[in-house]
C-alpha cells in the first residue's frame, strides 16, 4: 500500500528497528525474572482460586507461604500438594483457605510433578482453545453486522448488576464492545478481589465472578441481537498477569495492557511492570485476546500537538514488546487519541494526519482510537460536536476499535442515555461519510503530509535518544510523559525475583512453545 501521507518506508523501518533495539535489553532482563503476580497467575491457570475468611485470595496465600522459594517457581509446590493430598484443585483451594500450609508438605519426585503439570496445562489449554474457537465462530457469523471500527463503550457504575443492565442496553443500541471500567485504584491492589461486587468508585472491581456475570449477559444479548459482543477489562497494575489469566479463562476479548502505563501513570516499579506485561501478553496472545495499549494517557498529561511523537514512539515500543510475547499484529490494539486543544486552528487536520499515520505504520493492527477527554467541559453540546469530528476521523482513517466519546465526559461516568447518544452519533457519521477518504487524496506537501512527516522525524530522534540511554534510564530521565520514575522505586518492586537455575513454570514453558518464542542464546 502506498503512503497517502508520503511517509518514507525507510524511515518507518528505521523507527521500528530502533524500537526493537530498545526492547532487546529489557527482554533479557525479563527472561531472567519472575514476580509475585506472574507466580499467582501461573497458580490461577493451574487451578488456584477462592479466598480465605479474611478475604485473602488463595494464590496470594500460596505465594506468601513460599516467599523464600519463589525464585524456583511456586507451581511445583501447588502441584505437589495436589499429588500428595490426592485431591482436585477445588478441594486443595478450600484447604489452603482454611489454613493448610503448602511449604510443609513433603515433595514428591519431580517427574510426577511434571506429569501432573502437563495434565493441568492441558486442561487450561483446552479450555482456552475452546474459547478461541467459539469466539472465532461468533465473530465470523456476525461479520457483516460488525464492520470496522467496532463501537466500544464503557460501563462504570461500580455495581456489576447495574453494569449488566447498562451493557445490555448498549449492546442493543449497537455497541460491539463493552469495557467494564475498574474501580479507582484497583491497579494498586496487590491481589485480585473475589466474587460479585456492588461497591466501587468510578468503576467496578475486576473479579473473576464479575467477568463471568458480564460474559454471560453479553453472550445472551449478543445472541438476541445477532452480534458478538466483546468484553474488555483492565490488566494494568500490580496484578497484570493474573487479570490476563482470568480473562483467558472467562473468554474476555480485549484487555487493557500497556508495557509502560503502570510505570508512568501508577508509579509501579519498572522491573515489575516489564516482567508482568510480558507474561500477561503471552497469555493474551495464546488466548487471542486483543490488547489495548495506553498511548492516550500521554496526551492527557502532555500537550497532544507538541508531544504527538511520544504516541508514535510508544506504539512502536508496545509493538516490539508485544512481538516479543509472541503476539501477532492482529491482536495489537495500539492506542492513540483525539486530544488536541479544540481551539487550535486546523487542529482537525493534525488529528487526521496523526490517525492516518498510525494506520499506515501499523497496517494490520486493530488500532484503538480514544475520544476527546481532556478538553471536554460541562458544555455537553460542544462535547457532542467534538465527538462528531472524532467519529469522522475514526471512520475516515479506518481505525479498528472506536472508544466512543461521552458528551458528559467532564461530569460523570456515563448515564445510560449518554452511551446511546454516543452510539447514534457514531453510526450517523460512519454511515454518512464512510467513503470520504477513499474519495480524496492528501495534497503533496500539504499541511497534513508535512505534519505527519514531521512527527515521524521527531519520533525517530526520540527513539534514537531513548536507545542511547537505554529504556530504564530514559524512564528515570523523564523522557516519557514528563514523568520520572526511579528504577528501584515505585510499587511492587519487592515482588520481583531473579529466577534460579532450577526455576520451573509449566505455564510459561507451554506458552513459549505454543507461541514460538525463541530465546536468543547468549
Amino acid at each position, binding site marked *: 500500500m502506498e503512503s497517502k501521507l508520503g511517509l518514507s518506508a525507510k524511515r518507518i523501518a528505521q523507527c521500528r528497528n530502533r524500537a526493537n533495539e530498545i526492547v532487546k535489553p529489557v527482554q533479557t532482563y525479563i527472561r531472567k525474572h519472575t514476580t509475585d503476580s506472574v507466580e499467582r497467575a501461573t497458580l490461577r491457570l493451574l487451578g488456584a482460586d477462592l479466598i480465605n475468611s479474611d478475604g485473602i485470595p488463595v494464590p496470594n496465600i500460596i505465594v506468601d507461604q513460599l516467599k523464600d522459594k519463589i525464585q524456583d517457581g511456586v507451581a511445583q509446590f501447588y502441584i505437589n500438594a495436589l499429588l500428595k493430598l490426592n485431591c482436585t484443585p477445588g478441594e486443595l483451594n478450600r484447604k489452603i483457605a482454611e489454613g493448610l500450609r503448602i511449604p510443609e508438605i513433603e515433595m514428591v519426585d519431580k517427574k510426577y510433578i511434571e506429569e501432573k503439570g502437563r495434565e493441568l496445562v492441558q486442561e487450561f489449554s483446552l479450555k482456552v482453545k475452546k474459547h478461541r474457537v467459539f469466539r472465532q465462530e461468533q465473530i465470523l457469523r456476525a461479520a457483516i453486522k460488525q464492520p470496522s471500527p467496532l463501537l466500544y463503550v464503557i460501563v462504570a457504575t461500580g455495581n456489576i448488576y447495574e453494569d449488566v443492565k447498562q451493557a445490555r442496553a448498549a449492546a442493543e443500541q449497537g455497541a460491539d464492545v463493552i469495557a467494564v471500567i475498574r474501580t479507582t485504584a484497583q491497579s494498586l491492589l496487590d491481589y485480585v478481589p473475589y466474587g460479585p461486587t456492588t461497591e466501587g468508585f468510578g468503576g467496578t472491581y475486576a473479579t473473576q465472578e464479575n467477568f463471568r456475570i458480564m460474559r454471560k449477559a453479553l453472550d445472551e444479548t449478543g445472541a438476541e441481537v445477532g452480534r458478538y459482543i466483546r468484553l474488555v477489562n483492565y490488566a494494568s497494575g500490580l496484578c497484570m498477569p493474573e487479570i490476563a489469566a482470568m480473562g483467558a479463562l472467562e473468554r474476555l476479548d480485549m484487555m487493557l495492557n500497556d508495557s509502560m502505563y503502570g510505570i508512568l501513570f501508577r508509579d509501579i516499579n519498572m522491573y515489575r511492570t516489564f516482567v508482568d506485561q510480558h507474561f500477561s501478553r503471552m497469555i493474551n496472545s495464546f488466548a487471542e485476546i486483543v490488547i489495548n495499549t495506553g498511548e492516550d494517557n500521554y496526551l492527557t498529561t502532555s500537550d497532544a500537538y507538541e508531544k504527538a511523537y511520544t504516541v508514535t514512539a510508544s506504539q512502536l515500543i508496545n509493538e516490539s514488546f508485544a512481538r516479543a510475547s509472541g503476539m501477532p499484529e492482529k491482536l495489537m490494539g495500539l492506542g492513540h487519541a483525539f486530544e488536541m486543544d479544540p481551539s487550535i486552528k486546523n487542529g482537525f487536520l493534525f488529528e487526521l494526519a496523526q490517525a492516518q499515520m498510525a494506520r499506515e505504520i501499523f497496517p494490520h493492527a486493530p488500532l484503538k482510537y480514544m475520544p476527546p477527554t481532556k478538553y471536554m467541559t460541562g*458544555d455537553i453540546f460542544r462535547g457532542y460536536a467534538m465527538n462528531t469530528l472524532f467519529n469522522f476521523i475514526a471512520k475516515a482513517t479506518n481505525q479498528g476499535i472506536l472508544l466512543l466519546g461521552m458528551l458528559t465526559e467532564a461530569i*460523570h461516568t*456515563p*448515564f445510560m442515555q449518554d452511551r446511546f447518544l454516543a452510539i447514534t452519533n457514531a453510526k450517523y457519521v460512519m454511515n454518512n461519510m464512510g467513503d470520504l477518504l477513499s474519495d480524496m487524496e492528501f495534497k503533496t506537501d500539504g499541511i497534513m503530509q508535512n505534519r505527519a512527516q514531521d512527527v515521524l522525524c521527531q519520533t525517530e530522534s526520540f527513539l534514537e535518544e531513548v536507545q542511547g540511554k537505554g529504556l530504564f534510564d530514559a524512564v528515570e530521565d523523564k523522557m516519557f510523559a514528563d514523568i520520572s520514575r526511579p528504577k528501584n522505586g515505585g510499587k511492587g518492586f519487592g515482588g520481583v525475583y531473579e529466577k534460579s537455575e532450577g526455576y520451573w513454570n509449566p505455564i510459561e514453558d507451554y506458552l513459549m512453545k505454543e507461541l514460538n518464542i525463541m530465546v536468543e542464546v547468549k
Partner: protein
Amino acid sequence: MMIKAYGDTLNDGAVQLSFTLPVAAGPKADEAARIYMGKLGFEECEVVHSNPLSQDFTFFVAYGKSSASLDFSKVVVKEVETTMDFNEVNRFIKENLKRKIVVVGACTGSDAHTVGIDAIMNMKGYDHHYGLERYPEIEAHNLGAQVANEDLIAYADKVQADAILVSQIVTQKEVHIHNMTNFIELMEAEDLRNKMVICAGGPRITNKMALEIGFDAGFGRGSYPEHVASFLAEKILEKERGDRNE
C-alpha cells in the same frame, strides 16, 4: 409500579437540564442557577457549565436528582388503535361499508406546511407507506395548505365527505388550539359535527388534546397513512351502525 428517572442506578432520579437566566455571568449567576434548580425541586444540583450569552444573559447546563416519582401502572394513554394495514383497510371498507369512503384533508388557517398532510394523503405517501389517495376504497381530496376552516367545511359538505382531516404544524402562541377550536365551533354551527368523523394531526398534536378539543382523534409525530385509514374505517362503520340503530 413507582418509577423515577434513571441515570446509572435505579431510582437515582437523575435529570439533565439546560436553561438561560436573565443575569450576567459570574459566580453569582452560577449560584443563582444552583438555587433555581433547587426551586425546581432538584437535589444534588450540579451546575456543570455556564456561559455568558450576552451582558445580561447566562446559559447553564446542569444535572440534578429528583425524588419525584410516578405510578407507571396508573398511566393511561388513549391511544388511537391502529390495527390494519393497507390491504386490510381496503378489505374492511369493501366488506363492511360496501362503498368508497370520502375523505377531505387540509392544513388550515395561516399554516402553510403541506408536507405533513401530503405524507398522509398523497399517492406516493411517506417513508414507503402509501397515502390515502392510493387506497382503492378511499376517495381522497387534499386541499393543500392555508385553507380557511370555512372553505374546508364547505368543500367537505359539497362532496359529502365521511371524514375531514385537519393538519396543524405551527403551534406558536397556541395558534393550533385556536384554529382547531374554531373548526369545531363552525362544524357545530353548520350542524355537521355528527355527520363526519374529524381528525387532527401534526407533530405537536396528541390524541388526548384532540379529543379534549372535540375531535374524534389526533395523530402526532411518526403517524402513517394506514393509522388514519384504519381508524377512519372503523369509526365510520361505528357511526353508521349507531345511526341505523337510532
